Structures are given as structure tokens and as C-alpha cells.
């Protein structure tokens, strides 16, 4: 699993194509974002007043109880969902429809069962990449995520952790300015999850793209993120809960990565974050 990393694994040759030269990280801004599902009396506000700036190259973890709109925020960034009000801007231009600057890794691998891993990863390649460059990039990515020997395997022939690595490789194939991860390790066992987190850190070190990571795992957020935001309901002036979740807390995680999983400082932050999520840390 500890894939030997060369920084060239992610970077395509500068002179290859105009498209692949864009490996640089992009900043993301949420401007007064609001998302309401349904109409009239049935209307149900999930997110409101989300105002936030993500620096380019930053790893941002998004925490919150389930159903609080974490995924909705991520889907709005990818253009899979459009906000009811406000906007998401990537590098200053608003997201309208599926955005080619983003790449998405879902909670489930969502690989095409009739394709080999190689072909599945190739789906992530940006348009306009030549067949030769694409093939070279896919084989570099397979090596990066430790699946070199499984290039010709079908998704059903490999384990869940391997499928999730292939899904990550597919997202990386896009040279994304913004990498969107929706609880990508949530369904994995604890040991595989830790290995995947280390892999993600390796990847980020080699090609520091902007990462938005939705998770419900406080430890994962502390281990991976530069900053953590917590989405939740905020009582308004009357004390009643206003409809829809918004950012209730922003935390800057100290220390260089990889961080000591047993550090006292992180343990204290963990307790405080859990409290914000409405869970006692006993």
C-alpha cells in the first residue's frame, strides 16, 4: 500500500498537451449558498447562508451529523446539483453545470462493472488527452495507488479497499483543480481506512490540489485537514432552530502532516469537535 511516490507520478509532461498542463490547485468560494428542496409548504431547506473561502491547495474537512447537507455542498461544487440561491465560485468563475475543473470520488467506488480497472480510470481523463498520453497517465496512476498488477481486473474481482483506490485514481486522472471526496473511506474497515488516509496524504504532497473532504469521522478530519468546518443548525434570535444547516464552527488544525494519531493536542480537539457535533466524548 505504501506506494513509492515520485512527484512525476501525477504531473504530466508540461509540453505534452495544453490540457494536461493544468495541475495547479484552484481556490473555491461559497457565496451566500442556499439549497431548498421541494416547493411551497413542502419546501425543506438543507443549507443556508454558507459563506466560506477555501485556499488553493488547502485540505478542508467538512464535518456534520448525517443529513446536514455535507454532500449537498460537495455536489453543488461539482455542479451535480445547483444551489437555490448564492453561488459556488472556483477560481473566481461560478460553477454552472458539471464542472470539468472538479473530480469526484464517491462513498461507493461506482466503477463500471464491465470495464477493467484500467478502462475505469481512463474515464476520469480530461477530454482532449491523446490516447498515448492517457494510457501513460493511467498506468502511472495504477502504480501510484498500488494497483499496477490489477490493471486488467474487473471491479468485482478486487476488494472494496482496492475498488476505492481505483475510484480515487479515476478522480486523479482528471488533474482536478479541486478534488471532492464524499466520505470516500466511510465504508472501509478501520485498518484499510488508515492506509487510504496515508495514501491521500502522499498524493496531496506530490500534487497539492485543493481537497474538499466530507467525512463523519472526526479523527480522519484531524489527521488529514488543514481546516475543519462543522455544518449544523444554528438557533436564531428567538432560540428556535432556523431551517437548514450552516457553518457553525471553523477549526484550524495545527501541526504538519502526517500527524501523530495519539497526540494529546489532537485528543483535546477531538473532544471539542465531538461536543460541537452533539456527542459527548466519554
Amino acid at each position, binding site marked *: 500500500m505504501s506506494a513509492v511516490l515520485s512527484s512525476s507520478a501525477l504531473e504530466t509532461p508540461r509540453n505534452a498537451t495544453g490540457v494536461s498542463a493544468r495541475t495547479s490547485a484552484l481556490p473555491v468560494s461559497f457565496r451566500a449558498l442556499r439549497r431548498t428542496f421541494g416547493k411551497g409548504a413542502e419546501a425543506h431547506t438543507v443549507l443556508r447562508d454558507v459563506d466560506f473561502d477555501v485556499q488553493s491547495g488547502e485540505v478542508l474537512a467538512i464535518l456534520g451529523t448525517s443529513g446536514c447537507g455535507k454532500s449537498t455542498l460537495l455536489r453543488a461544487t*461539482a455542479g451535480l446539483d445547483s444551489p437555490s440561491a448564492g453561488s459556488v465560485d472556483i477560481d473566481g468563475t461560478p460553477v454552472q453545470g*458539471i464542472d470539468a475543473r*472538479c*473530480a*469526484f470520488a464517491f462513498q461507493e467506488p*461506482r466503477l*463500471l462493472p*464491465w470495464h477493467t480497472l484500467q478502462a475505469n480510470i481512463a474515464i*476520469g481523463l480530461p477530454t482532449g488527452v491523446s490516447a498515448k498520453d492517457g494510457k501513460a497517465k493511467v498506468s502511472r496512476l495504477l502504480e501510484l495507488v498500488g494497483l499496477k498488477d490489477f490493471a486488467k481486473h474487473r471491479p468485482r474481482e478486487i476488494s472494496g479497499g482496492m475498488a476505492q483506490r481505483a475510484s480515487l485514481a479515476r478522480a486523479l486522472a482528471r488533474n482536478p483543480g479541486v478534488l471532492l471526496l464524499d466520505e470516500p473511506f466511510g465504508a472501509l474497515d478501520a485498518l484499510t481506512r488508515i492506509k487510504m488516509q496515508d495514501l491521500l496524504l502522499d498524493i496531496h504532497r506530490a500534487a497539492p490540489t485543493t481537497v474538499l473532504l466530507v467525512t463523519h469521522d472526526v479523527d480522519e478530519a484531524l489527521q488529514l485537514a488543514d481546516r475543519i468546518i462543522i455544518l449544523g443548525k444554528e438557533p436564531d434570535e428567538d432560540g428556535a432552530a432556523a431551517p437548514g444547516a450552516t457553518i457553525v464552527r471553523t477549526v484550524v488544525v495545527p501541526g504538519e502532516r502526517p500527524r501523530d494519531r495519539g497526540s494529546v493536542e489532537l485528543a483535546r480537539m477531538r473532544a471539542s469537535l465531538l461536543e460541537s457535533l452533539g456527542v459527548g466524548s466519554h
Partner: protein
Amino acid sequence: MSNLGTPFSTGNSVADGRAAAVSATPADAAQPGSPETGPSGSPANGWSPAGILANGWARLLLGLIIPAAVLAAWQLSTSAGIFSVVQLPPPAMVLEAGTDLLQRGQLGQHIAISTQRVLIGFAAGAALGLVFGSLVGLSRFADVLLAPTIGALRAVPSLAWVPLLILWMKIGEDSKITLILIGAFFPVFTTVSLALRHVDRNLVEAARAFGLKGVRLLTTVQLPAVVPAVFSGLRLALAQAWLFLVAAELIASSMGLGFLLTDSQNNGRTDRLLLAIVLLAVIGKITDGLLGLAEKWAVKRWA
């Protein structure tokens, strides 16, 4: 232990047999789950039902048991004089009728023309079914526009088309092939349009997130996802094609297996009549078997 369970049962009879053995003989209970249990271990010695079913030749032989029994009963009932020769001629007479027609060069002609009609009608009907099924399955607009009309056309019994087709296209190949086309169209149309509506939304969304849309999305995700359903539609369509062939040939033709049926009925040739029925069964089964092979390959490739 090897004689537990009948060799004709299907499914998990090995496990069932084991469970029975465990409860029946305490001596065996010491080694119930291990796959290499020596001489009494069912999977190894080939005598278990699953062992027999894993062998292709054994499966073929098993499948021939009932046809052989029917043939024997046919032979016995005719030689015992239960039926008159006009009602039910013996198998040998039917075989003789077959060789006779073959020598005159008529049998080959009947078979060839019928098979040709089925294949052309089936291919055209299946292709149209695939196109319209994709349209209705993928586009909400096409669904609203086309589905009621196609549903109403499907409700028309097949034979109701015959007079109209003959009036429009005369008694020739066109009218027969069109009838078969109609028969083959609907099963493919229905299975494809329904299957496309139930393609895993998560897969489609993932592909869209990576910029796939339109025809590329169709060929990369949606069509491969429905390949197994398409093949079950095709097999239904092929069966329908043979059904509609006989309907077409019974009514107006001078060649083909359906014509052989009516012609023999009019001439009191029960032997030829039976021959036509047996041939329809055999050829129908062969074409279905070939399609089944293609299905097996496709499902392995795409699913």
C-alpha cells in the same frame, strides 16, 4: 453418503444432503463441512447431483431423458394399436416421410425458406425494438409521445394484422416478414425500455460527473448495463418470431414449415404434419440455443 439426494434435483442439494447426513448419522457429523472428506465427500467423486450437473455431457443426457420417454411412449402406443395410423402414425413412418421429402428436395426448401423468414423478420424487428426501446427508455419526452401508441399497437392480436398486410403487400415475402417483424419488435422494445429506466443511477451520476453525456453516456454506461435484459428480450423475440412465422405461413404461402402443416392437414398426411411439428421444435430449440450461447458470452463480457 454418496447416495443421498436424487441425481435429478437441482440447486444446493450437496449442502442439503450434508445436512441430512449430519442429522441422520452421528458418525459423519464429525466432518460435516470439510470439502476434502475422502471417499464420502460428495463434490470429489462426481456422484453428487452437483457433480453430475457440472458435466456438460451429463446435462445433455439428462435433458434427453424426457424426449426419449415421449418417443418410447409414442412407439408403444402406436404398436399396441391404441391409435389408428391416421390419428397417430408411428415414429418410423414420420421419419420415412422426412427422408421422402428430403429426397424430393422439398424438405430442405421448406426449412430454408422458413428459417430465412424468421431470421430476417427477427433481425429487423429486434433492431427496431432496440432503437425505439432506447428512445422511450432514455427520454421522458419520447416516452410520453410514443408509449401510448406503441402500447395500443401491442394490444392488437397478431392475426388481426394478416388481412391488412396481405391487402397492402400482397401474398409475398414482404407481408410474412412484416408480420414476423411485428412479433419480434415488442419483446425487445419492452425489455429494453424498462431496463434502461432502471440503470443504476449512481453509475450514471458518476459518469456524468466525469463529463460523459449524450451518445457517449449511452454507449459507455447505459447500453452495457442493459445487455443482460436485451438478451432476455431477444430470446423472447425469437420465440415470438417462430410463432408469427407459422401464423403467416398457415394463412397464405406455398412453401415453408407452416405450409407443410396446412398442406398435410388437407391431404390427410398426419406423418408429414407430425414431421413439421418436430422440425419446428428442433429448429426453434437450435436457434434459441445459439442465441443462448451469444447471451452467455455477452453477459460474461458486460455484466
